[in-house]
């Protein structure tokens, strides 16, 4: 039993420091299809983010006219024609489920589309890199300036100040747009520029300015590699059919010069297309080499595809040496078979179906949601009261919700104990048997309701009792069940 375990000296791990210093990344500017898609999406995303608070939507008198508004003081969320109350927060749960499923679907079709094109971290970092490139020059120039040991000259100081000023300005706009979602945007802008806005607005702008400036200006790809959980999760969600940004090593290897490759091909020997020009590495915003295969640092932005395509065009080779592909097809090509693409497969079908299902449920719930509601809370102390003639009375706190933008009149009636008489405290309605109550627009009304019933006809300890309200104008009905209890 006492077997001596031999340790292989080659297997012993190097116990070095767990910390690795950041290697600065100086991405080269690129032109091409994916760069254009990224510019387009950036313009769209930022446009929506910055301009949406200024879009107006008429909701009638007394209601805010901002299309998208999170009204915290009044506990309302407005989204165009939708108005949600705090108790309807489950719609956001539904949205989050759809968002998660959409991420899964995107991932199973085209890898980290979210990371590469849509994530705010990517969009803002891309924008900050664009500013940096505009002011300090492209990759080589920035590398030279960063490595330079010369004392700072005025021009260089000016460049640095200008770059950080523009970064801060963008960051400030980012935070500035954020607070506009929480109150009437034009009013707040006016107050902000006249320094009359509430302190909390300035505090939030300052916080988001700081985070944007730090995350997009300094931390950049480190957020994706070290902070974000999504790269890890997506690695577990992807499958062999998903199209990821892939270096086609079947075509690229072995790397060699154009001249040597032509010579080898002339002799009928195998040769690789990759000329080892490192343009894909130069263009990468996370500073990796895609030719090392799929890796967690790769946000799959497609910029290396553009970089490689440009080189291939120059040397007259076929493009898409790097492209959206997968390992199955690489193996098939190596075996001399044509590639196959399976966008429609059980995984994508199931995700799409789930998105449709959740979306359908949410849409149904939204379209059929009640704009009139009633909540009943039975008095706990005393639960029941015996009156001098021996009859039983129960008291309830009834809360009525009117989600419409106008006042309405409802009648209340109760169904449960025999010969029950309903009374609303403070209400001297002309119809005492079926009290009428006015509900203010877009708000709740709390009533104290007394239900009295003779004890001899209601001998059960607890009788289920239905409280029903009916809008006398629209005929809308809402009800709630509680109990009528005997002492």
């Amino acid at each position: 039993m006492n077997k001596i375990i031999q340790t292989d000296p080659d297997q012993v791990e190097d116990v070095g420091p767990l910390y690795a210093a950041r290697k600065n990344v100086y991405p080269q500017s690129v032109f091409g299809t994916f760069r254009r898609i990224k510019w387009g999406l950036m313009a769209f995303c930022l446009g929506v983010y910055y301009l949406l608070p200024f879009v107006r939507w008429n909701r009638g008198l007394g209601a805010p006219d901002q299309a998208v508004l999170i009204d915290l003081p009044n506990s309302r969320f407005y989204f165009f024609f939708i108005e949600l109350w705090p108790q309807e927060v489950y719609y956001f749960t539904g949205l989050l489920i759809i968002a998660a499923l959409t991420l899964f679907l995107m991932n199973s079709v085209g890898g980290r589309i979210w990371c590469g094109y849509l994530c705010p971290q990517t969009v803002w970092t891309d924008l900050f890199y664009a500013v940096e490139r505009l002011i300090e020059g492209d990759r080589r120039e920035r590398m030279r300036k960063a490595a330079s040991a010369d004392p700072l000259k005025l021009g260089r100081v000016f460049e640095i100040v200008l770059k950080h000023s523009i970064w801060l300005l963008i960051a400030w706009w980012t935070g500035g747009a954020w607070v506009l979602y929480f109150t009437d945007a034009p009013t707040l802008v006016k107050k902000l520029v006249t320094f009359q806005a509430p302190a909390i607005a300035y505090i939030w702008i300052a916080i988001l300015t700081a985070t944007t400036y730090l995350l997009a200006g300094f931390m950049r790809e480190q957020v994706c590699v070290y902070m974000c959980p999504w790269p890890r999760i997506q690695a577990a969600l992807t499958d062999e059919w998903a199209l990821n940004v892939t270096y086609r090593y079947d075509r690229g290897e072995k790397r060699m010069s154009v001249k040597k490759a032509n010579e080898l091909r002339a002799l009928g020997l195998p040769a690789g297309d990759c000329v080892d020009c490192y343009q894909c590495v130069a263009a990468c915003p996370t500073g990796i080499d895609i030719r090392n295969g799929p890796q967690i640092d790769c946000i799959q932005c497609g910029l290396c595809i553009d970089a490689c395509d440009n080189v291939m065009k120059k040397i007259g080779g076929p493009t898409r040496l790097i492209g959206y592909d997968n390992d199955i097809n690489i193996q098939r090509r190596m075996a001399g078979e044509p590639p196959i693409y399976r966008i429609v497969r059980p995984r994508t079908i199931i995700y799409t179906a789930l998105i449709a299902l959740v979306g359908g449920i949410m849409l149904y719930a939204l379209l059929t949601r009640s704009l009139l509601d009633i909540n009943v809370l039975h008095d706990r102390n005393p639960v029941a009261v015996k009156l001098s003639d021996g009859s039983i009375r129960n008291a309830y706190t009834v809360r009525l919700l009117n989600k419409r933008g106008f006042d309405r009149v409802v009648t209340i009636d109760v169904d449960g104990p025999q010969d029950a008489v309903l009374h609303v405290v403070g209400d001297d309605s002309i119809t005492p048997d079926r009290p009428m109550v006015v509900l203010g627009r877009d708000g709740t009304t709390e009533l104290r309701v007394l239900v009295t019933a003779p004890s001899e006809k209601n001998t059960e300890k607890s009788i289920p009792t239905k409280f029903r309200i009916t809008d006398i104008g629209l005929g809308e009905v809402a009800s709630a069940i509680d109990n009528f209890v005997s002492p």
Partner: protein
Amino acid sequence: MAESELDEVSGKTTTGHQWDGIKELNTPLPRWWLITFYASILWAIGYWVVYPAWPLLWSYTRGALNYSTRAAVGVELAILEKIRGDKMIALGAASLADIEKDPALLTLARARGKAAFGDNCAPCHGSGGAGAKGYPNLNDDDWLWGGSLDQIVQTIQFGARSGHTKTHEGAMLAFGKEGILKRDEIGTVANYVRSLSGLPTRQGYDVAAGAKIFAENCTSCHGEAGKGNQELGAPNLTDKIWLYGSDEATLSETITNGRAGVMPAWVGRLDPSTIKALAVYVHTLGGGK
């Protein structure tokens, strides 16, 4: 005790202390710690100057800011009063009947009344006003001293048998202890009282004698039919609600020893608008007339 020496490994001197060959390094405190320490001392001195700090024989050092937690509470209370201001003034100005007709005033009065009830009334009447033996249930429609808003205000202000000059007076006499009624007469009239509200009576009790005793002793307060009298706080004996209990033993005890529950007077202890709010709260518990 060895001499202080230079430690080769760390390059620091030792203190000279030694335990079984283990020497103690003379490592200075970290600088950040020392800075924090001295800053705390400076802070404390500043605090003594600015805030109340040192107890003196009959007083204390008041500090440059003249700060006092008591004054701070006073300021906060004043702010609270100011916030409530308009509403409480409106409550004080409105007539009792109007309060219940104005939903906003009713909500305010009930909220204020509920808080005041919890603070002042709940020990006897219970947190929901359900009462207990000897302490009336304020939710029902049976009132000793009247259940209209004005009558409730009157009772809250001056109480019952509270000693206040305007208090409700009148008590159940101790017919047994005072020797007015004999033991068997008490049993007979207790059964008669039970019959007034339709409760079963002991078999073979003398109805005529019971009626006679009742007519001679009880009707001056409880009325000929036993319906009670709110002027005197005499309960209605014909209904289903009993403050102390309706069984024969309890009734006999009541007749023998009498009853005189006390409710304190609240005028002067609670401000008028709070009493108003309390009255509205009690009235809207459900039993208000």
